[in-house]
C-alpha cells in the first residue's frame, strides 16, 4: 500500500498557525512524524483559511519547507491548476510530485494531463465530472476510462495515474461504500499496466462518532478489492496496523511474528 499522509493541511491548527507565522517548525515536525508513522508520500494542502490570492505562494512555501526534511514524493493538493503548478515548481525536481487532483471534465483532464506529462508527475483523477460526483459504479468507470485515455493521449503511462472512486461520508449515503468497492475491482481492469487506485479515506467517517474504526474496516475491505493507495492519517497507529495486517492476509507480504515491526523498519 502506498500511503499518502494527509496531515500537512492548513485546516489543522498546527499547520494553519505555522502558515500564518511563516514558521516551518510545525511543518517539519508533521512531515517527520508522518514518515515515522509509515507514510510513503505526503499530501500538501494549504487549506481554506488562506485567502485565495495567496494560496499559490503558500503552496510554494509549504512544499519548500517539506522538501527540507524529506525526499519522499509530495502530493500537491489543490483544484486550481495554477496553484498545483506553483507547488510542482517549488519541488524543483528534488522530489517526485503527484498532482492531487483533476476531475473528469474533458478540458480539465487535457490541461492537467499535459501538466503531469510536462513535469514528470503522477496524477490523481477523481470520479467527478460536470454532473458532480459519479454515484454508480458505471458512471465512476466511465470517468476512469476517460481519465486513462487522456493520460495515454499525452504519453503518460497508466501506472502514473491514481484513480479515486470518491468515498462519501457513510452517514450521508450508506450504499456508497459498497459501490466504491465494486468500482475498485473494476478500475484494475481498465488498462495494462493497471492504474493505481486511491481513496481519500478520512472523508468516509466525516461527522461520524467511530471515525478510526470506520476508516480501518473500510480500508482493509477496499484493499481486498484491489485498492493500492490511500490518503489518510498515518499517525493513527491502529489504522496503520490494520493496513499492515491486511497486506499479510492478502499475501502481499510474508508473515513473520514481528511483521508489523518489519513493515515499519522497512520504511
Amino acid at each position, binding site marked *: 500500500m502506498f500511503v499518502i499522509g494527509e496531515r500537512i493541511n492548513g485546516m489543522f491548527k498546527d499547520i494553519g498557525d505555522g502558515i500564518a507565522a511563516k514558521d516551518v517548525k510545525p511543518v517539519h515536525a508533521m512531515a517527520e512524524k508522518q514518515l515515522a508513522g509509515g507514510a510513503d508520500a505526503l499530501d500538501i494542502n494549504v487549506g481554506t483559511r488562506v485567502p485565495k490570492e495567496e494560496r499559490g505562494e503558500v503552496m510554494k512555501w509549504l512544499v519548500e519547507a517539506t522538501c527540507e526534511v524529506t525526499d519522499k514524493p509530495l502530493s500537491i493538493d489543490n483544484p486550481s491548476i495554477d496553484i498545483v503548478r506553483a507547488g510542482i515548481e517549488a519541488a524543483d525536481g528534488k522530489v517526485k510530485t503527484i498532482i492531487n487532483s483533476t476531475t473528469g471534465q474533458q478540458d480539465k483532464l487535457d490541461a492537467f494531463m499535459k501538466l503531469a506529462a510536462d513535469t514528470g508527475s503522477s496524477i490523481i483523477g477523481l470520479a467527478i465530472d460536470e454532473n458532480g460526483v459519479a454515484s454508480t459504479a458505471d458512471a465512476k468507470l466511465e470517468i476512469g476510462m476517460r481519465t486513462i485515455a487522456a493520460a495515454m493521449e499525452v504519453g503518460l503511462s497508466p501506472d502514473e495515474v491514481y484513480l479515486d472512486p470518491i468515498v462519501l461520508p457513510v452517514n450521508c449515503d450508506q450504499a456508497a461504500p459498497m459501490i466504491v468497492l465494486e468500482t475498485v475491482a473494476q478500475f484494475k481492469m481498465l488498462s495494462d499496466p493497471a492504474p493505481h487506485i486511491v481513496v481519500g479515506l478520512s472523508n468516509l467517517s466525516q461527522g461520524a462518532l467511530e471515525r478510526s474504526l470506520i476508516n480501518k474496516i473500510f480500508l482493509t475491505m477496499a484493499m481486498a478489492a484491489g485498492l493500492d493507495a490511500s490518503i489518510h492519517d498515518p499517525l493513527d497507529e491502529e489504522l496503520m496496523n490494520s493496513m499492515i495486517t491486511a497486506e499479510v492476509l492478502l499475501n502481499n*507480504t*510474508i*508473515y*513473520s*511474528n*514481528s*511483521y508489523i*515491526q*518489519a513493515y515499519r*523498519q*522497512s520504511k
Partner: protein
Amino acid sequence: MSKLEDAKEKWPAAIHELTIGALAADGGTRTSTVTVGGAAALPFMHFEGPTPNRPVIAMEIWDCEPPEWSEVVTDAIGDAIKSPTEWAKKCVEEFGADLICLRLMGTHPDFGDKSPEEAAQVVKDILEAVSVPLVIWGCENDAKDNEVLPRCSEAAKGECCLMGTVTEDNYKTLVASCLADGHSLIGLSPIDINIAKQVNILVSEMGFPLDRVVMYQTSAALGYGIEYPYSIQERGRTAALGGDKMMAQPVICMVGSEAWRTKEAKATAEEQPGWGDETTRGVFWEFGTAVPLLMAGTDILVMRHPAAVVAVREYIDRLMKTEGV
C-alpha cells in the same frame, strides 16, 4: 496473427549486494574478495533485469578429519583432508574454490569438543594458508557455538568473513561479535519462510545492517524434498524483488553435505549393483542437487567433491551468458 504480449516481469527492487573478504586496502589480508547478490530479476532471467554477480562456490572443509564421509569424496581430496590448512590450499589452488567454508565440527561436544582457542587457531592458520575469503560455520550446538564463534570472530577481525549461524533462538552473541569485528552473518531458519524473515528482523533490531546478512533456509538433496527449499527460496526471492527489504538477502545452501547424505550418492557398486559406477554417481547427485538450488536463486553453494565443483562452475558459466537472450 496478433502480436504476442510482452510477458516480461518488471521488478521494483533488487537483492542486497554483499562482499565477503577484505583486501589489504580495506584492513584485511585477502588477495581476492567475493561479491554476491545484487540481482534485479529472478535467477538467470537476464532479459528481465541484471544479475551483476554470478553465484559462487565455497568448498567445505572441516577442522578435523571427517569420520563418515564417502570415500569417493575423501579419495578425491587425498591426504590433504588430514590437515585443514592443506585441505583449504588444495581447494583453492587445485579445485578453484571461490571461497572456503570452514565448518568447526571438531568443536562439537560429541565430536572432539575442541576448545575455542583451538578453533580460533585453525581460523588463523587457514587465513594464512589461503588468500580467498572465508565462511566460518559453527558446529550447530548453541552453547558451544556461543563460546567458540566469538573467539573465531576476533581471530579473523577485519577479514570480513561470513559467519554462521544465527537462529531465532540464538543470535545475540554472534550478532554482537560480527558487529564488533566487521563480519557478515548467516541467518538459519528450518525450511520456514516466516522464521527466515523473523531472524532478519531480530538481527536488524540489534543494529546489524541487513545488507550484511545471508539467509540459510536449510537445504535438501535431490530426491529428498528439494522442492521445499526450492519453493521457499523462490517465494522469498519474489518478495524481495517486489520490495520486501527483510527478504532481500543473498542465499547460501549446503549442497555437498545434503547430497552426500543420500544413499544414492553413498552406496557402493557392491551394495547397489544396478545403480552404476559409484565414483561418478555421487558427483552427479551433488551436481543434480546444486542445479535446482541455483535455479531457486542460491548465491553461495557450499560443495564437497572437486569434480562436482567443476561441473557446477561450467553450468553457471552457461547460465550467466547473456548473449542471444
